[in-house]
């Protein structure tokens, strides 16, 4: 069976070389703009070939797909509700889903809301757009 790290190395090297070739041909970049990307791509290919000979990586901390999906879930939530609602809500749901009692989960959500409002909105003066679902209601 082909090792996953080798597939990753080959795919990355192919992608980088394809981008450089595209830049030289269809991208019509001037020669000076191609020199350094081509050198870097050469480095990716040469060191990639050397890296292919390396032994397989040792198993480290297990990373689960569920954890990745949980983290990714915050992204659509931000687009739908905006940072100011999405982040505290995400904290609440995440904590409840991980068997946290309602009170600590609520405290976490309030804590997150406080950080967002006090530090990022008041002190840093950041402007957060409302999400697609909330924006019509706020207007």
């Amino acid at each position, binding site marked *: 069976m082909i090792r996953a790290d080798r597939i*990753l190395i080959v795919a990355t090297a192919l992608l980088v070389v394809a981008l450089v070739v595209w830049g030289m041909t269809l991208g019509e970049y001037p020669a000076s703009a191609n020199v350094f990307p081509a050198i870097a791509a050469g*480095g990716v290919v040469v060191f990639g070939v*050397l890296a292919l000979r390396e032994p397989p990586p040792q198993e480290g901390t297990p990373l689960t797909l569920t954890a990745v999906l949980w983290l990714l879930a915050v992204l659509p939530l931000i687009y739908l509700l905006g940072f100011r609602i999405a982040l505290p809500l995400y904290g609440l749901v995440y904590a409840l889903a991980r068997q946290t009692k309602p009170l600590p989960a609520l405290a976490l959500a309030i804590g997150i809301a406080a950080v967002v409002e006090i530090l990022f909105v008041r002190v840093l003066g950041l*402007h957060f757009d409302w999400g697609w679902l909330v924006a019509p209601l706020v207007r």
Partner: protein
Amino acid sequence: MWDALLSAGSQTLQPGVVWAVVCALPVGLLFGLLPGLSGLTAMAVLIPFVYGMDGFAGLAFLLTAHAVVSTGGSVTAILLGIPGSPPNAATVVDGVPLRNAGFGGTAVGAALTASAVGGVFGALVLLVLLPVLRPVILMFGPPETFLLSLMGLTFLAAVGAGSPAKGLFAGAFGIFISFIGYEPVSGVPRYWFDYDYLLDGLRLIPLALGLFAIPELVALASGGSLEQSKGDLPGKQLFDGCKAVFSRMGLVLRSSAIGSIIGIIPGVGGETAPFVAYAAARQSDKNPERYGTGIIEGVIAPEASNNAKEGGALVPTLVFGVPGSSGMALLLGAFLVLGLQPGPNFLRDHLDIGLGLVLILAVVNVLAAGLMLALTPLLARVVNVPPRLLVPFLLTLALLGAYSTENNMQDVLFTFVFGAVGLACVRFGFNRAALLLGFVLGPAVERYLEIALNIYGPAFIVRPICLILIALMVIALAAPKLTARLRRRPA
């Protein structure tokens, strides 16, 4: 000179200045502790407050907040595995394995002490060189800056643990992705695929957060936990960390010198200094293979250089009015707001202010380390917080840190994209620090080589400083192999 120094001392002790330092210190540390918020953000937020302040107090206020950010960031880098600011990324490499081995307190103690010593060293360098450095800096043109950046790239294989080939592969990939966006000389946009965000290239903070924070959060959400100290009380561990720094003064001074030199040269990029110091420490060590596995030298070297570089970065700002970094550019703006004009005549007219800033820099670095040492037992309790509460909170800080750089949602999106790259690096043993170093240095190498070739042609490499830098590079590359061969030779 002595009169100016006495005047600087008395100015520094003015109540208004002391008050400004006391107010700015916790703000700078807080910005360091929070992932994604940098010294630049701290200065940008604080600049409006200097209006109406006395000139020197205003400068002390901003410089304090800027100078101590990386001190705060080192604690986050070690305890959470998330660099508080991009320059703290090199500290993660050995800080996290140390924490995982139950020596988080020792690592934090060493990082904070090294930061203080490095900061004082940087200030001393500034003090000694300020009056005499002008001709030396003038000798550093684009060719020399190019070679310095190239020198940084030669350290790619030496940053972190694991296979050098994989480190170089990751570094080369980091260099390649740094070329996305406008080409620095011709202005041609590259590899942007009609996606406007890519015109200005990929951004450093989402990259750093994606590479380091997302994998750490996934590990926590996957059921991992932040390791707690083994047996020793946090206070005892902190003390051990402090002692470790003083028993390795050679390393501390060497790393601080690297930080100061890189800080002095405008254009190389302050983020480079800790990586170069780390790599230099590794290459000069008898057992370089221990680096990346959790050794205290791997924490001391980057942190000493991190704080020393701020003193160096002040030199071109004060002497030429040329900021060495974006943070210094904001400080330069504050000088103008306060009615002061840095540049060739600044030291002649305001030597006392220049020396006062040196004193401030030295004092705040020590104060910041002391304050953080006092607070660390409290902050270290974060490792006792259950991951189910920690993950959403840290994710909030990371995402808002990414967003706050440009108020741009794309930065949040790209934090996740780089998070995927970071996860692949962790899973398959590629070196994330090398990738970040390549990304930081790639544009500098390209920009300064093109400028050097346009001005001097290929003959630029025979300029005296260029020849010295090339010789240093060859020595740095050949030294580990030569040393290893000499050690293998039977006595």
